[in-house]
């Protein structure tokens, strides 16, 4: 496909947010900028979102991927988010987590359906490529119903 003259499909839509009580948003700001610079549309929210609000947001904005940043223990709420997305009929949306997340918790998150956990120092290319791939998968899953 390298000599194709076609351009890429509509940009991936990614929600970058924080749930729970921790308000540090430096990491999520940086990731949002990475994704924008890679040509994605990033919906950015204030921290302290309730699960219910994240689901409403994902539905209304029709996002492909949700990135949740967690520096405290907020990632432990992610299994609830996964369940709530499924209930809303938006189980095709991929969820990634980033921040300070202990190994034991990581395994649990992956079991709950989280697609990927990024640790501090994750390379920009890895984040961008992973989110891009997941967006493509989410769209395919949605289209195939």
């Amino acid at each position, binding site marked *: 496909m390298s000599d194709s003259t076609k351009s890429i499909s509509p*940009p991936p839509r990614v929600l970058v947010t924080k749930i729970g009580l921790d308000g540090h948003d430096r990491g999520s700001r940086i990731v949002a900028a990475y994704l924008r610079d890679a040509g994605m549309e990033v919906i950015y929210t204030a921290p302290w979102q309730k699960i219910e609000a994240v689901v409403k947001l994902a539905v209304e904005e029709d996002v492909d991927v949700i990135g949740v940043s967690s520096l405290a223990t907020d990632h432990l709420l992610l299994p609830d988010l996964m369940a709530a997305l499924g209930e809303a009929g938006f189980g095709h949306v991929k969820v990634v987590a980033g921040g300070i997340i202990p190994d034991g918790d990581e395994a649990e998150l992956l079991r709950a359906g989280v697609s990927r956990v990024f640790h501090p120092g994750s390379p920009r290319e890895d984040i961008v490529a992973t989110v891009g791939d997941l967006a493509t998968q989410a769209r395919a899953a949605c289209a195939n119903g």
Partner: protein
Amino acid sequence: MTDRSAAAPASGKLLERLLDGEPAALAKAITLVENAGAQAAQVLAGIQSRLGHALVIGVTGPPGAGKSTLVSALVGELRRRGKSLGILAVDPSSPLSGGAILGDRIRMAEHACDPEVFVRSLATRGHVGGLSSAAARVVDLMDAAGKDVVIVETVGAGQSDVEVAQLVDVTVVVCAPGLGDEIQAIKAGILEIADVLVVNKADLPNAERTMAQLEGMLSLRDPGAAGVPVIATTATEGRGVAELSDAVEARAEALGGSVRAARTLAQIRLQIADSAAELLRRRLNDSDDEGLHALCRSVQRGELDLENAARRYLSDYLVNKA
């Protein structure tokens, strides 16, 4: 994983669910229309008879004037008045990457869980018919989904706002003291499209001077500007917001029904032209025709200029195969 069937309905069902006001259906329909997807035309045709219920308010002004904060406060006031709302928040795409950070929702957290408030962020992207044609369709979808009021927030950047003004019933232009943008806003012509003028951040020291400046500018505008109210607000505290709601409703009343319904034939012709351009662009971009690849390569090698490549595409590939 979970049941996905609810998220990917056929367009007939999608239309039905959209007209029922189901948020997921409205969201999917917006995506279809934004991407000019194959089902978009069907959905748009299906809603035509259900348009004209919503009052459509445009909110524009320089970045940082407090538009999103004011929209959030206005939403609060209109919710107290029993209205359901659709909000379309438009932010610029990066011209370099094509990506965007859409951050207007940061200021609207108060309504994060209110099912009667539907918010959608739209990047300006490379919409061919211009941003206004994409935005017009999203507004129509929100209207058809039964929203009482639809608010469109755009960054005051001149021409595109003038276009957006044509798709709303009432245009609110928001300025604020201390941006150094008051005069620039006037240069770009956005003052001319204002039905209601707002000086936000009335809590800041220079607010009164900004009010006086704008009132002075308004008096230079055509006589029609005489009735344009200038309202001071402090969006962060909700001050002046009830007055703004009153002014918007009074203006809508004075217009007597939907302005959008009163499109001229010339406007409709332009909208058809926009839609045709969008269709053509999609068709060209999606085509796998070998002749088209060859055309691209000729232009790349400098054997053919763009204008003539376009003409050749139209005559050779489109007309013959339509």
